[in-house]
């Protein structure tokens, strides 16, 4: 069963084709990795799925419904959560408030209820707080930083807070754009453990863009390879690793890098 299916996605920036007729099917409950050289279109694919790039062609189906025309905020409400390649937290707020924002769609208070606060708004805020403490903060081991402003955190912790915010959305699909970029060995292992727990214990489908091939091969159940905006291979990690087109794409990149250096 596929929880997310993209077909014929095409996205252009001026002369650059970021996505060219991309088809991706994401199996429910697994970890799907999207890999490919720099500029291959991985982030663009995430942006098209989460809804703030409008592809010029193609369709998207999520959990049985066509979401091609659904605006970004409504896709989030349907159960699509994501993190960004360059951390995108709200710097003026504390860690806790950032995470609470993930719960936005599960709360109901309107403007008047919020102004009055007492009663319903206060009760649902208390519920959210308790739930976040239990299911997100304890789980990701970030109790010691909940009251700190984002700027006070090291990069690795910021990435973890961004994951926390996405988890607070209780999504069906979690899209992680380079979750371990810039992390040391230990932080990477922690993150890998969290991702596996999210998938195994909560049944959340994970999509993952990552350059760390060790991590990709270790934890993903399905791999899609992009190059110049096109899908050049997909399959199990073992299949993809043997695929000559993939090897060529990566060797090509390495060769090109050598020429530049």
């Amino acid at each position, binding site marked *: 069963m596929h929880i997310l299916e993209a077909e014929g996605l095409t996205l252009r920036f001026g002369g650059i084709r970021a996505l060219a007729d991309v088809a991706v099917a994401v199996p429910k409950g697994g970890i799907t990795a999207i890999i490919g050289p720099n500029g291959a279109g991985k982030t663009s694919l995430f942006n098209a799925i*989460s*809804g*703030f790039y409008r592809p010029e062609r193609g369709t998207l189906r999520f959990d049985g419904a066509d979401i091609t025309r659904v*605006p*970004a*905020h*409504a896709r*989030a*409400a349907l159960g699509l*959560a*994501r993190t*960004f390649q360059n951390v*995108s*937290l*709200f*710097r*003026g*707020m504390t860690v806790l*408030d950032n995470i*609470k*924002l*993930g*719960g*936005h*769609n599960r*709360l109901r*208070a*309107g*403007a008047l*209820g*919020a*102004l*009055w*606060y007492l009663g319903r*708004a*206060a009760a649902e*805020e208390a519920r959210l707080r308790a739930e976040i403490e239990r299911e997100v903060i304890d789980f990701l081991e970030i109790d*010691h930083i909940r009251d700190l402003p984002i700027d006070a955190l090291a990069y690795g912790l910021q990435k973890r807070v961004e994951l926390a*915010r996405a988890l607070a*959305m209780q999504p069906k699909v979690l899209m992680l754009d380079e979750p371990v970029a810039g992390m040391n060995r230990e932080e990477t292992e922690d993150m890998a453990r969290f991702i596996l727990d999210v998938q195994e214990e909560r049944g959340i489908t994970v999509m993952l863009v990552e350059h760390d091939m060790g991590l990709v091969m270790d934890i993903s159940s399905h791999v899609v390879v992009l190059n110049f905006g096109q899908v050049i291979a997909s399959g199990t990690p073992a299949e993809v690793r043997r695929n000559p087109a993939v090897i060529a794409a990566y060797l090509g990149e390495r060769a090109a890098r050598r020429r530049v250096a």
Partner: protein
Amino acid sequence: MRIGDFHASYRHDEALFDTRAQRVWLGLLLAALAAFPFVGGSYLTYLACLLGIHLIAAAGLNVMTGYTGLISLGHAAFMGVGCYAVAVAERAGIPFFLALPLAGAASAAIGLVVGIPSLRIKGLYFAVATLAAQFVLGFVFREWESVTGGVRGANVPAASLFGFELAGDRRVYFLIAPLAVLMLLGARNLFRTRVGRAFIAIRDRDISAEVLGISLFRYKLAAFAIGSFYAGVAGGLWGYFFRVATPELFGLPLSVFYLAAIIVGGLGSILGTILGATFMTLIPEFLRALVGWAEAFGLEQAGVYLAPLRQVVFGLLIVGFLVFEPHGLAEMWRRTRRFFHLWPFRT
């Protein structure tokens, strides 16, 4: 310097102490507010009423501009809507406790009319739309004579409760002060909930706000409606206080006055709203005193320059704070407090 572990283990006690101390302070403050018009004399009571109105209006503007990032150049016009609404409501025999919410609602409704077309587009466009609203509403105030009384304006009867007239500053004070306290509390409450968090998220990074499921359009509209509601109530109180509504009261200079208040006080801060509104209430009084002295010392024409002088000072304050202290008086206050908190171990 507070150290993390220390803070964590004593957090509970500290919070308890904190709230108890805060309750005592709040009680004292409320008592002082209740006693104020009896102790303060007529001039200070007048100033307090004016401050109350400015507080409500500035709180509304800070919700939209400071917290949500929507710059409004038409706040005064929305106050005008509230003021005229109260004049009309009183003529229809509607009592003040209904007329004031109606004034807020009327203003919020016009806010929606302006906001729905202009909030779909980002940034400057909205500011220009509010500027247009400022002038269009001013035009309506002047020309719709049957309702507004044109340039001569409309009289506003005193608010009355079961035949008891809230006439005179001291009595109106007891209408304005409680409302100002309530509406500041309301503004504070907003930011303890998902609604206020969404506002800040939109201001800080609207792309990631959307990815969290926040509809930018809906929440910008909500912020604008809340801000306009506050302006409407403040305008209504203005009517009950000055007992008159005229078009030139609610012009662009007053809108700029409120922008100055929240910039000087601190954008996106309740404390900033309070400090800024207080500061800006006192500035014109100070300038008037200054001009008075100048006249007393033989500069007989000094009075002529009062109005332009005021505009120049407001402008300088806006620019000065934006350049040198963008977080306003609230930040200066926090810095001072931190200084004494750490003193003498760290300076």
